[in-house]
């Protein structure tokens, strides 16, 4: 039996497990499979259009009868600083040359847009059971509409102060994202990477600071980790990295091999891939330009100039400029269908909890 049912009551899922929304690494297939297994299936919508998001949610609704989570980002957009972007392109010029690309060619516009009125209308139309945000919350008018549509609202805190802020601004559940987590740090009231606590230190501090249920995230990829999160006071867990190697993920070809072959201590936090700190397996870009560089333009402008390099290198079978987002639990990942993995995670967590109670 789960020692805490608050998240189960809120989401109405079979298990208190949230599939982490991993933009770029997954779409409908993984969300459907995880939901079929009993987790909350999440669809990352931060890098897709309104039409694409509608199409994908409709596919999910057709294939599984379970609650669904639409995930958005809500960064404050800052205009690209022309001087910084020019210097960044200069820094990347040798790579353009090496791959036979024209560094002067016009770059495509960013596909990373924050949650806006158009997406809010879509939420009102589709009424997902849960909406989760990254980098804080959208403005109060939009958030009010999301809540009026009946959606449970969730967002990530990386420090206690962010958790308190999220609760005050209307979050129904808070993801405590420890430093172990893969992908972008959800930080929005701090920009100091050195002060980001680990999951074990963060979760109980957040639990003490807020009244809403807390979802532990970062480094959790097996039944032991889930049981530990409950011991710390969490009401559930969000898991991403463990699902990366499932057949339903969109991690393909060389990237899949790179993740499978990464060593147990391989992941690092970098800002050179997008301009925001994120954890992943080092690629050539992170090794040679980062992992942290003061020259990276603000999010998401650092990523824009990397687009052509990523595409050209991938054609050659290389992940030199590909995001290999993954958390510290990468070594626990298994190649297993996501529904089966979800059930195995829940079963081993329950077994661990009852074993320790005996």
């Amino acid at each position: 039996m789960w020692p805490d049912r608050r998240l189960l009551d809120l989401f109405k899922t079979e298990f208190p497990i949230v599939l982490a929304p991993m933009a770029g690494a997954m779409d409908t297939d993984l969300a459907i499979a995880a939901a079929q297994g009993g987790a909350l299936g999440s669809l990352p919508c931060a890098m897709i259009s309104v039409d694409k998001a509608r199409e994908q949610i409709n596919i999910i609704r057709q294939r599984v009868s379970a609650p669904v989570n639409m995930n958005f980002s809500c960064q404050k957009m800052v205009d690209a600083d022309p001087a910084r972007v020019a210097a960044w392109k200069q820094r990347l010029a040798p790579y353009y040359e090496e791959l036979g690309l024209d560094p002067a060619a016009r770059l495509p516009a960013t596909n990373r847009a924050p949650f806006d009125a158009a997406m809010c209308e879509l939420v009102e139309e589709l009424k997902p059971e849960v909406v989760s945000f990254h980098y804080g919350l959208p403005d109060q008018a939009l958030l009010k509409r999301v809540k009026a549509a009946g959606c449970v609202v969730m967002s990530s805190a990386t420090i206690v102060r962010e958790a308190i802020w999220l609760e005050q601004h209307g979050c129904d559940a808070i993801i405590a994202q420890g430093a172990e987590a893969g992908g972008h740090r959800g930080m929005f009231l701090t920009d100091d990477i050195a002060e980001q606590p680990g999951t074990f230190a963060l979760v109980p501090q957040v639990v003490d600071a807020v009244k809403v249920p807390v979802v532990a995230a970062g480094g959790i990829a097996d039944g032991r980790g889930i049981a530990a999160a409950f011991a710390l006071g969490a009401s559930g867990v969000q898991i991403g990295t463990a699902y990366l190697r499932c057949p339903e993920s969109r991690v393909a070809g060389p990237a899949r091999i790179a993740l499978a072959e990464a060593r147990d201590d391989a992941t690092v936090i970098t800002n050179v891939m997008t301009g925001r700190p994120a954890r992943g397996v080092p690629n050539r870009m992170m090794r040679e330009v980062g992992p942290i560089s003061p020259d990276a333009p603000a999010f998401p402008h650092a990523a824009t100039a990397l687009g052509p390099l990523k595409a050209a290198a991938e054609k050659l079978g290389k992940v030199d400029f590909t995001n290999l987002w993954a958390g510290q639990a990468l070594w626990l990942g298994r190649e297993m269908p996501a529904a089966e993995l979800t059930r195995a995670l829940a079963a081993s967590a329950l077994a661990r909890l009852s074993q320790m109670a005996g």
Partner: protein
Amino acid sequence: MPIVTPLTALLGIRHPILQAPMDVIAGARLTAAVSSAGGFGILGGGYGEKAWLEAETKKLKGTPAPFGIGFITWSLAKQPELLDVALDARPGAIMLSFGDPKPFVPRIKAAGALLICQVQDEGMAQQALDAGADILIAQGTEAGGHGASRTTIDIVPSIVDLAAGRVPVAAAGGIGDGRGLAAMMMLGAAGVLLGTRFYASQECDGAEEAKKRICAATGGSTVRSIIFDLSRNNVWPAPFNGRCLINDHARRWAGRELELLQNVKTVAAEYADAKAAGNFDIAAVIAGEAVGLIHDIPPAAEIVDRFVAEADQIFLGRRNSSAASRA
């Protein structure tokens, strides 16, 4: 209900709670208090200061409850004779951290003491097992003081798997209350090693001002860096650096470590003065990420009792104590 694990059985203790051998501030008083409470106190031999070690071990001689003595391995290697001073006090175990334990193993075993090795990755764990370690401490980056980069939730299960039941593994780093003990045991640990929590105890020999700062600190107010080591001319081997509370000195030099190195003479003099004067705006308060869970300075025995009671409630499937008291 007592929490019985392979660690309690091996060390002959009542509770699976070890007190970290914090350099000099974990003196005989704290060590004896933790051991008397049913945990395992470990004297903070640290870098190795002979007069201090002789004085403190003398106070520990004849303590009825088992206790340990800890050293920084690479520093002990410079004055290996200190191990004899330690063994002369008949400790139940010697704890070695940061370096190859192998040269010291024959003397430790000949004296009938157990060997506890603190490790930060799989390579070090294997080295310790090969050398004959009886207990491993898997230390995550959340820990105060010296350590490395991997976090507790990552390193603990990995080391537990590697040890494969041959020796008990205790967890260290980021543990501030009984929830942490329960969580570490969920991960497969046989117990915990607590530093910062015992720093803020009545019997710890640390400065009162430092203890108060630990109680006042919130989560996210510590940083792992080389700034304080550089500032006291104390060069550590890679990959180790130290976690401390963020203070004016840490803020001043963050990201300017090279410049600090270039001005090290001036800074070191200034730092030594501040340390002597107890000015913790400059001098380090060595503490881990659990500071946000620590709000008082109780007797060590009370800390042990609280941990056991809280963990016990969690194992029984009751809500964790903090949430329960709030509801």
